[in-house]
């Protein structure tokens, strides 16, 4: 408990108290996914409650009503769902850095499933996460939890973590480190009583270089995902030219392309889930897949962690760096010091920490 408290204080300390008031958070509606109309009132309540909860933060907040007012001038109205292209257009019109919207599904046992989408206009990234709470009894704590998660995920560390990682867990680690550096990293993990599976450790040479490792920044899992929306409305652009004039080889080519696109693009979440299931079985690891990317100078890292049991992204964080500047005179290498810092974050969850919002908004000349 004391340890958790100290870690929380550390995170607050690193985040600092300097918040940028020119960062704008806009909240759309939370669509009622059930057929029970008596829950419709919550479509605005969730957004307005989260805004109230964030009121003390030094950021600009827009409620659904504020957005409606802005859209009224354009003879438009706020929708419940958006295509990827519409998200960028809406954010531009209402001049926000982050746009949040979502949906909820109430169940008979008082449980409610909430899905929240956080769109970052400046980076064109969409983070989606799903959580379960009690509608009647825990609504206030649920709103507080959602507010903290949103604030962190929109922060400079793009931080999300919804469960602690238990001691003595087993990890399959994929990283961009060189073999001797990998040994340094492994030794820190093993020294803290964690187990390392055969993934990547059975290689003489590292297959993942720095350029390719950045591909893992965007990650899709069954519930929580972070993805870049650079290819807005792809589905509309797919146009297979197909007809009676096709000869056999053209038909086969189209079928081949179709299956590749389906497997690696539209059905990618399912394809990936199956690949991870097989990886978990073959490596006898039912715990975690950890993707760790170190920058070239080994002073910062980003992390993605997937729980093999559920297939869910449970932790993402960027710009991880030691609280104190890396000690050049220290006997430990930078990799060792940074790995030690990463392990410190195992006990932290989103509702215990806060990072400052990312204020990279370009006031003019937004390019999309």
């Amino acid at each position, binding site marked *: 408990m004391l340890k958790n408290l100290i870690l929380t204080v550390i995170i607050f300390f690193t985040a600092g108290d300097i918040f940028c008031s020119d960062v704008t958070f806009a909240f759309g509606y939370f669509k009622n996914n059930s057929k029970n109309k008596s829950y419709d009132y919550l479509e605005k309540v969730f957004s307005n409650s989260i805004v109230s909860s964030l009121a003390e933060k030094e950021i600009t907040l827009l409620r659904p009503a504020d957005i409606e007012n802005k859209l009224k001038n354009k003879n438009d109205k706020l929708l419940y769902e958006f295509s990827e292209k519409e998200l960028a257009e809406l954010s531009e019109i209402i001049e926000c850095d982050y746009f949040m919207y979502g949906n909820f599904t109430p169940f008979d046992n008082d449980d409610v499933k909430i899905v929240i989408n956080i769109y970052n206009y400046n980076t064109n990234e969409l983070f989606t996460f799903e959580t379960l709470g009690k509608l009647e009894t825990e609504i206030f704590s649920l709103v507080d939890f959602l507010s903290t998660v949103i604030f962190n995920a929109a922060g400079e560390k793009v931080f999300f973590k919804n469960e602690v990682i238990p001691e003595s867990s*087993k990890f*399959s680690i*994929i990283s961009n480190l060189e*073999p*001797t550096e990998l*040994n*340094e990293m*492994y*030794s820190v993990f*093993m*020294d803290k009583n964690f*187990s*390392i*599976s*055969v*993934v*990547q*450790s*059975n*290689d*003489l*040479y590292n*297959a*993942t270089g720095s350029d*390719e490792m950045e*591909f*893992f920044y*965007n990650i899709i899992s069954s519930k929580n995902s972070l993805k*870049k929306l*650079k*290819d807005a409305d*792809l589905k509309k*652009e*797919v*146009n*297979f030219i197909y007809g009676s004039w096709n000869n056999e080889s053209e038909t086969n080519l189209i079928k081949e*392309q179709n299956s*590749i*696109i389906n497997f*690696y*693009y539209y059905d*990618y979440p399912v*394809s*990936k889930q199956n*690949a*991870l299931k*097989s*990886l978990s079985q*073959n*490596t*006898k*690891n039912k715990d975690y897949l950890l993707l760790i990317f170190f920058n070239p100078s080994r002073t910062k890292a980003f992390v993605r962690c997937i729980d093999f049991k559920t297939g869910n992204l449970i932790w993402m964080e960027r710009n991880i760096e030691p609280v104190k500047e890396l000690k050049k*005179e220290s*006997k*430990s*290498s930078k990799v*060792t010091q940074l790995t030690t810092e990463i392990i410190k974050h195992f006990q932290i969850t989103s509702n215990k920490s806060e990072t400052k919002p990312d204020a990279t908004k370009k006031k003019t000349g937004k390019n999309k």
Partner: protein
Amino acid sequence: MKKIIILFTVAALSFCSTQQGVKYLKAPVPSRASVAVIIDCPNDIKNVVMAEFLKKGFNVKAVNASDIYTLGEVFDISDYKKLAYRNSEILSGQKLYENVYKMHIYNFESNKADMLNEMKTKWQVNYLVLLELSDWKKLSWARAIDLNSMELVWVENYPTKYKDSLTDVVTYFIDSMSVK
């Protein structure tokens, strides 16, 4: 002259500080265990390394590094790009390329683990030992994996010394992984 000596000393000290040895041994590899030693070097050097393991009583299975690895030999990265960008008329090649690459990394790791399971069941190999030997001033490194638990049990970086011979380094590693 003084300046040169100081610079040399600073350079030597900074060099020493970067060449730190690292070791963690979770569980010693038992003598007489059945091991597959993976090392990428000419056959004459490979023979010397295997002989040292045999001398220490290990049951050494013949496995070449090229029998299993590496990703570059199995898949050419340009193939991924070709595959992805061939469809770029209808999709973003880059995004497809990223997904293809990530899937191949997951599948590559999964296939390797499957191969290691086969090594254990078909060839009765208990431990996989990886070695890379380097010259003086560089780090030689080694790892051992228990194929029953599919877990890493030993890692070590060893700064190769000026007087170290090939057999010195191999003997050092064998002793280091065998004794807790």
